[in-house]
């Protein structure tokens, strides 16, 4: 491969993180070095695609165009293999002009021969055409040619109605143009089909939050918690949303989810610890005058406060004063 740079690129792909500037820098360094480039072999394709997307993200659209077009240069292979396929089909028809049910041994041999030789190339060619088509659409999108991109994506969708990436790019385009209600509608439709896509649920929740539609955002997080009950981030954000919604029941549930976050993160999550303190104070304010049975024990809050103070003392001693006075104003 291309040494450390290639490993970095593979890691970025594997973890699905967005580090477009670095990807572009390292990727181009591989491409500009002919030795490293040839060492990649068939992986060169993956590199082109990754780089094209990174270039679009960094608004280096001319670089992106070159990368997308370079993939098309290899397409003559696909064309020649198409011709081979057509020749094979002609031979088959000649040999078996009428047979629809008769299965001849030599027919099978010929078919297997074709499959073994031509299909891999045809398949690669198909994937190449299809993913290049997608890259072309993304390039239009990156340029801001919304109408053209929308047309291109729609036509791709006709052939591949279950392509998740294309569906999501359309939602992204709606969001980028500020059509938030359209984005919400399409994202909801997408999630009806692909309800396991947790990134999409989070994106929908984010959009709802930006519109202060907290109940709807809470619903998204409830879906996430159902399918991924051990991801602390979902517990934490759900608690945050419930706290923001307010009301005694929501606050009590929020406190439980802050507690479960602390449980899942081994007690180290600063936000969750602070959340406990905030919840306790808010609950106490709301339940003033209620019977003693409804009052919660202050143990959880004082435990959380103690852990926070310890953490700050150990790792952020210069800010300990700030924390202590903040905690003071949160005590009932």
């Amino acid at each position: 491969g291309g040494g450390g740079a290639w490993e970095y690129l593979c890691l970025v792909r594997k973890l699905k993180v967005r580090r477009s500037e670095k990807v572009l820098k390292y990727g181009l360094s591989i491409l500009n070095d002919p030795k490293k480039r040839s060492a990649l072999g068939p992986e060169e394709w993956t590199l082109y695609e990754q780089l094209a997307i990174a270039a679009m993200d960094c608004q280096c659209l001319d670089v992106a165009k070159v990368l997308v077009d370079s993939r098309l240069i290899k397409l003559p292979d696909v064309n020649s293999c198409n011709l081979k396929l057509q020749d094979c089909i002609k031979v088959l028809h000649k040999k078996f002009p009428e047979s629809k049910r008769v299965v001849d041994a030599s027919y099978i041999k010929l078919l297997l021969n074709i499959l073994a030789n031509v299909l891999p190339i045809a398949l690669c060619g198909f994937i190449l055409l299809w993913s290049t088509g997608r890259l072309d659409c993304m390039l239009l999108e990156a340029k801001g040619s919304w109408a053209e991109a929308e047309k291109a994506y729609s036509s791709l969708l006709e052939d591949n109605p279950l392509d998740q990436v294309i569906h999501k790019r359309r939602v992204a385009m709606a969001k980028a143009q500020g059509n938030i209600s359209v984005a919400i509608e399409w994202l909801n439709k997408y999630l009806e089909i692909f309800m396991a896509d947790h990134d999409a649920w989070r994106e929908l929740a984010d959009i709802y939050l930006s519109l202060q539609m907290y109940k709807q955002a809470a619903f998204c997080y409830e879906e996430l918690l159902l399918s991924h009950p051990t991801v602390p981030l979902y517990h934490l954000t759900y608690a945050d949303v419930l706290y923001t919604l307010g009301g005694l029941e929501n606050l009590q549930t929020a406190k439980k989810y802050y507690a479960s976050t602390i449980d899942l993160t081994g007690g180290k999550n600063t936000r969750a610890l602070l959340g406990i303190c905030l919840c306790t104070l808010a609950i106490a304010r709301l339940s003033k005058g209620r019977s003693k049975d409804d009052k919660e024990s202050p143990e959880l809050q004082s435990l959380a406060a103690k852990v926070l103070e310890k953490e700050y003392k150990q790792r952020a001693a210069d800010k300990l004063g700030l924390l202590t006075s903040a905690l003071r104003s949160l005590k009932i």
Partner: protein
Amino acid sequence: AVNGILLGRVNPQNDGVVEITDSVPLFHSNLALLPSLEIALIMIEEHYGSKGLGIVGYFHANERFDDAELGIVAKNIGDHICRYFPQAAISLLDNKKLEALPMGKDQSPVMQLYIRDASKNWKLAGPDGGSRLVIKEPAANAVLSDYISSEKWQDVVDFDDHLDDIKK
């Protein structure tokens, strides 16, 4: 979107002037959630109170380049800030002006000022009198340009960063 708190004080000689002397960057995700905002405000008030400064405003930058509107989240946080300081203002980043910064010699601020009117609605402070945003230092935009080209934003640590890692 990102946001921040503006700190300062009322000018002791002229109570029609609010001086903004410092700011604290707040969040770059989930701006609409209350818990972190409440904690941040408590800590900021405490820290700056001892220096004689108070919360005087709120800064907001939209995520889309074309979006020049003061969104609902920004307005609500602005209302929240007004509880601390009734004359509080919102400063919204003007994306187009920011883009034009390295090219021109424009010394006007790259932000738009919003003030709350009598019916508690946020209105853009126009050139027709009322309120104005004035930069004290004329070379401020040059300094900003410089910071942008030297990628100084990489050094910015906001409250979100602090909550993720209290060492920051």
